[in-house]
């Protein structure tokens, strides 16, 4: 099997994720694009693990670690988004422009 196929899949997923992250303004859709980018990285990690026949299986172990960190990131990210929604009533990222509260 050609090594270049998984690497091209990885490149494609990462680029599509970048496009989504730049173009979306709904924060949940941005999180989804971030998941796509992480998956692109994972594909290349696994491909190189198989390519080099790594005895320590560093690539696949790191891929599992990345999946775990992505789960933690989604949990924490959604918590922050809920807080933002409670404060502003919207999760459109370009409307969250205030760095301080209104002076009274």
């Amino acid at each position, binding site marked *: *099997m*050609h*090594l*270049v*196929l*998984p*690497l*091209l*899949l990885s*490149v*494609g*997923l*990462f*680029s*599509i*994720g*970048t*496009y*989504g992250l730049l*173009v*979306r*303004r*709904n924060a*949940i*859709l941005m*999180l*989804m694009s971030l*998941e796509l980018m992480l*998956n692109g990285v*994972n*594909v290349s990690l*696994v*491909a190189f*693990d*198989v*390519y080099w*026949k790594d*005895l*320590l*299986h560093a690539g*696949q*172990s790191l891929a*599992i*670690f990345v*999946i*775990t*960190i*992505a*789960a*933690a990131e*989604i*949990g*924490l990210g*959604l*918590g*922050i988004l*809920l*807080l933002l*929604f409670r404060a502003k009533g919207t999760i459109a990222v*370009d409307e969250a422009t205030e760095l301080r509260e209104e002076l009274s």
Partner: protein
Amino acid sequence: MSPTGADIVFALLGLVSLASAFLVVISRQIVHAALWLVVSLGAVAGCYLVMTAEFVAWMQVLIYLGAVVVLLLFGMMLTRAPIGPSDDLTGTNRVAALFAATALTAVLAVLVVDAYGNSMLDIDGSHASASVIGEAMFRFWVLPFEALSVLLLAALVGAIAVTKPHEGA
């Protein structure tokens, strides 16, 4: 160097994954985007199976398709995401984003094809089954594994602490 069966299966799964990933970022309905994300991540899990990475494939199915997408759907419900098509999901910088993504694709694809264009993946001999990965994980990667479990606990506590309403506020 002629394409083998594994090549063809991988290419088909990869095309499914890329097409549905594209639909995730251009869809005008937020729930449809989440469901296309399921298709995309599932196809990536199939790609892992073709590359003999069984354990990573099942972890992908369990954690991404099972947990992360459900969490995202919950997040949509709690933030009252619009049902049906809506135009304000996408910002105004579409041209710049398209340019950046296209440039990134071009640079990375040229680099990858130039560096590994003739390399072959041997998927006949190695089978990274769950026992092999488990042995590697608990023999060589124990410390990162434990650090990661502490990180997960910290993220859990942090998520609860962040979303908890303050007393008296």
